[in-house]
């Protein structure tokens, strides 16, 4: 018994608090419906924590939550979305050290490199937060038409987007694929990096404690190849980001997504998330609506 005692002042006898994380669905942290979890290790194979192993039913629940949140989030003003996202960046900033330690453990990079990755990730979030109220001006237009009409086009969010997050870049990559989805008013169901989920789990804690409404981002940890096909074929998912999809099932996922005419972003995970981003990922989940309004009536 004595070695289990916490002896104050002698920190070497303290037992570390081993964590078993849960999923993030609809603003809550439920256990996986399947009651499964899997061990997460660092880049050298040492045990870090247990993560929930999401199942198809968790994916289904996440899609329902995302659908429920869509009306409110897409209906919020672009300015308001920008404020909410900026608030998320503030909370991210407050957890810099924790993120750096997790990125370092997950990706096997040095402390300095990890810190740089975290800083770039937070900057990336702020960059996308700034785009919320500007994207309509860039992608929308008033169109010159030959008739007594005022014709204008506005970009509108696609709906629920299923995101397969990059497998390698555990935080910067994740933020680079999630932020553009929600910045333009979509809601997201994200399958995190399978072997490096801890920064994503911490991100879910950040999202839960910032102003982001529950359900706008849902994070599922688990086996990508197990969950992805259910999201690709789900009739209530409107778009699919294949960035982190395993090579072997990419074709199947695209075929399944075609069954319900989803938008599919076919980028591969190998992209360099450190480079200066463009609005390509914002544009990928926007649909252009053109309105012909009679004039002079």
């Amino acid at each position: 018994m004595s070695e289990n005692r916490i002896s104050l002042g002698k920190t070497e006898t303290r037992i570390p608090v081993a964590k078993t994380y849960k999923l993030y669905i609809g603003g809550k942290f439920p256990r996986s419906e399947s009651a499964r979890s899997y061990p997460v290790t660092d880049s050298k194979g040492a045990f870090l924590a247990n993560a929930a192993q999401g199942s198809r039913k968790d994916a289904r629940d996440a899609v329902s939550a995302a659908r429920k949140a869509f009306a409110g989030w897409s209906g919020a003003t672009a300015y308001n979305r920008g404020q909410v996202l900026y608030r998320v960046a503030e909370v991210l900033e407050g957890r810099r050290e924790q993120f750096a330690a997790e990125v370092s453990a997950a990706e096997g990079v040095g402390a300095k490199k990890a810190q740089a990755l975290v800083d770039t990730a937070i900057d990336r979030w702020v960059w996308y937060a700034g785009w919320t109220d500007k994207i309509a001006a860039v992608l929308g237009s008033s169109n010159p038409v030959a008739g007594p009409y005022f014709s204008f086009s506005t970009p509108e969010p696609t709906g629920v987007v299923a995101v397969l997050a990059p497998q390698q870049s555990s935080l910067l990559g994740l933020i680079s694929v999630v932020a553009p989805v929600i910045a333009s008013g979509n809601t997201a169901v994200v399958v995190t990096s399978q072997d490096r989920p801890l920064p994503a789990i911490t991100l879910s804690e950040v999202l839960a404690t910032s102003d982001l409404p529950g359900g706008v981002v849902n994070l599922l940890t688990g086996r990508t190849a197990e969950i992805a096909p259910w999201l690709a074929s789900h009739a209530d998912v409107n778009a699919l980001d294949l960035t982190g999809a395993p090579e072997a099932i990419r074709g199947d996922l695209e075929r399944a997504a075609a069954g319900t005419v989803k938008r599919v972003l076919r980028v591969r995970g190998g992209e360099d998330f450190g480079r200066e981003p463009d609005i390509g990922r914002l544009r990928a989940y926007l649909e252009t609506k053109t309105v012909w309004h009679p004039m002079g009536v």
Partner: protein
Amino acid sequence: MAAAPSTSPLAPLPPALADAVRDDASLRRFLHGLPGVDQVGVEQRAAGLATRSIKKAAKMWAIDTAISMVDLTTLEGADTAGKVRSLAAKARRPDPDRPDVPRVAAVCVYPDMVATAKAGLEGTGVHVASVATAFPSGRSIMPVKLADTRHAVEQGADEIDMVIDRGAFLSGDYGAVFDEIKQVKEACGDAHLKVILETGELATYDNVRRASWLALLAGGDFIKTSTGKVSPAATLPVTHVMLQAVRDWRDLTGELRGVKPAGGIRSTKDAIKYLVAVHEVAGPEWLTADLFRFGASTLLNDLLMQRRTQLDGHYSGPDYVTVD
């Protein structure tokens, strides 16, 4: 009590029950003599049965059975003839892509919409149910309640959903409630009578049991949990108590009476929990639309989506079913 039991159009009651409805005092004695409900026990049993896992072929059967038990309901102040017609169309062919989906049991509307619903359901075998007797509060005078009922029956309603006077019941005036149900039953003629107990306002399981027996004694063909306008509406434990009542009624009289939970049942999962309860508490002979119904509007869409999920092998979405 105005109506003497001898004028009852029903089969004669067994002596014990005939004695119960002799006068107010014996009715009260009978209802208060019913065994009390073990609250913890019934809730535990309901929760225990709800954990049962129903999969694959059994689930498909349960979904189709549940669809055939749905009373597709619209009871809004904003109801229009167009909405009732579209509801009737949905009742006829719940999933237009799949003609093998069973029809629902009935369409449930306000009395003034009965004719519209009847026209939309001509020749389909889908019943028209109408709420009556100053639904949902039941606060009106008896002649108005009876006129309400007769109007619905004349318009062609096959089933009448009446509300009891909860005020009278809670103040212990069981005779008044008994007479009320009896008179409405007579006004119904051939139409089936469902008696809404509004369990959300009855406060205790003991009251639910008493109200159930009262409705059965007075001749209700169905006992129904709620109007859907009061929260809490149908719950599993309350439905358990009511299922026990119809089972005991069958044991005493040999007659089969029905139960209809209504309000708050929105998902296939919930519906299947109720079916399990029906099978375990009342018995398998109750697993038919003649003896068990779901009063619901959104439940049908979820049943259809789940049915598609089972058949297509992938999840469906609300974009693929009708809005109402």
